[in-house]
């Protein structure tokens, strides 16, 4: 029996990837949890930017929406949303874009638009939001999402935001300014793009998870790195910070957690 949940492992592992002092464009939901956990643990100087306008937000509870008052009140300043996308993201000021998605493929391309055909959708998802340009312009991208066959698919129904396109140097050839996804953190493992093919490759497996579980939860024949490590389990400090954050959040918002 582990003393933490797989979701907790995921949030902690994702948080660890945010360097202290990094300027981070934060998506709502799991990315926001991870980015704030990082800020409350090893990365107190991380600068969190939300697309609604807050720059340098330091929320004490997780925002339920991308425009919670808490974000504005704790920020260094709040600028118009148009400025966020123009001067700060497109202007090349973002070190890390922190994203989630409904679907991902082996090259870390993302779908948040539609399941099924676009014109006759099986499920209509919320849509692009800020993701296409975060994926393009942030210096690098971190992705956090739960792993499963419906999410980690062989073929995306729709490419909303690019990862490494069809792999190799496709991204650079397309003239995209940022490096693209550098890691995908799930509830089972951590993947990184292969340095040459840019195909996602498992580099670290969370404690207690088997290779078979990862294979089973992936819609393509997932590759494992030559050296696969075991993810360091959450430390007490990390776990305490995460649980305190989620408890404060639950008290502030009622039963719900920060969502999409």
């Amino acid at each position, binding site marked *: 029996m582990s003393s933490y949940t797989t979701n907790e492992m995921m949030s902690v592992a994702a948080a660890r990837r945010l360097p202290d002092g990094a300027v981070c464009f934060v998506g*709502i939901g799991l990315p926001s949890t991870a980015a704030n956990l990082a800020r409350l643990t090893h990365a107190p100087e991380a600068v969190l930017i939300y*697309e*609604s*306008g*807050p720059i340098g937000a330091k929320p004490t509870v997780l925002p*339920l*929406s*991308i*425009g*919670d*008052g808490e*974000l*504005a*009140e704790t920020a260094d300043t*709040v*600028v*118009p*949303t*148009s400025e*966020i*996308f*123009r001067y700060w*993201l*497109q202007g090349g000021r973002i070190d890390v874009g922190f994203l989630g998605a409904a679907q991902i493929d082996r090259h870390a*391309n993302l779908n948040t*638009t539609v399941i099924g055909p*676009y*014109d006759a*959708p*099986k*499920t*209509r*998802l*919320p*849509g*692009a*939001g*800020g*993701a*296409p*340009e975060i994926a*393009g*312009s942030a210096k690098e991208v971190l992705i956090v999402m739960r792993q499963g066959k419906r999410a980690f698919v062989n073929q995306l129904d*729709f*490419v*909303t*935001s*690019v990862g490494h*396109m069809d792999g190799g140097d496709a*991204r650079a050839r*397309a*003239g*995209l*300014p940022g490096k693209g996804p550098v890691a995908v953190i799930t509830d089972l493992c951590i993947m990184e793009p292969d340095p040459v093919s840019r195909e996602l490759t498992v580099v670290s497996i969370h404690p207690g998870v088997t290779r078979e579980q990862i294979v089973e939860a992936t819609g393509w024949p997932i590759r494992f790195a030559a050296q696969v490590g075991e993810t360091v389990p959450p430390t007490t400090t990390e776990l305490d910070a995460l649980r305190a954050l989620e408890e404060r959040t639950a008290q502030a*918002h*009622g039963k*719900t957690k*920060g*969502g*999409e």
Partner: protein
Amino acid sequence: MAELCSLREAVSQLIHDGDTVAMEGFTHLIPHAAGHEVIRQGKRDLSLVRMTPDLVYDQLIGSGAAKSLRFSWGGNPGVGSLHRLRDAVEKGWPHKLDIREHSHADMANAYVAGASGLPFAVLRGYTGSDLPKHNDHIRFIQCPYTGETLATTPAVRPDVTVIHAQQADRQGNVLLWGILGVQKEAALAAKRLIVTVEEIVDKLEAAPNACILPKWVISAVCHVPGGAFPSYAQGYNERDNRFYLAWDAISRDREAFTAWIQRHVRDTADFAEFRRVYAESSQLAEAA
């Protein structure tokens, strides 16, 4: 020049069937009261524009007021799907909804272009995305200096923009603060502008460089305290997160939705009565 009037008058005189309408608000300051009044007055065939259509657009769409939607993210923030939007897109209920889908960066730039009197905006965007395949309004041009390929999008120029703000003075000058979203751009991009406000004050105590909309760019200012409910107005009230959760259940079912709109919007005289009726029904629901 800003006229201080009731929201009923403003919507009646300034929003016409078939208009392109933007009701903006980025989680903060969403003009819910105005959206309800549009439903109450039975406006039809509206071309809706909004970066983040949420509950109020779900209500407009489910009520049959909308012909089309230009947007970049349609969800119930913090909860999940917009069921009325999905039902319209997936099943064509209550009728077909033409959607024109962009990204946030695109929409933000499109409002800036609209406010700037330009027909289009240029952005670094969409590379590798499937969105341009399904939206022929997203196009690409070459930079006349470097030859780089950049995306373009048509400016948003609404017939009417509606926003909610914290304060107006008695002359009709408006002040807003906190999360500003794209409201200033949406306001200045529009031919007509309706602003609902929390409070009318003798004098705006604005900081230097505050976000002010002068009275002469505003068509009507309407005093509607709490008019952003269940969204919030910083300094005045808080977001009612329970409403967003409750909406998920109400909006999943066509009949439940229709009954809710009838009772809470169509059968109420104004937003104040809606708030009373909603308070009663939600107390009953909690007691049950």
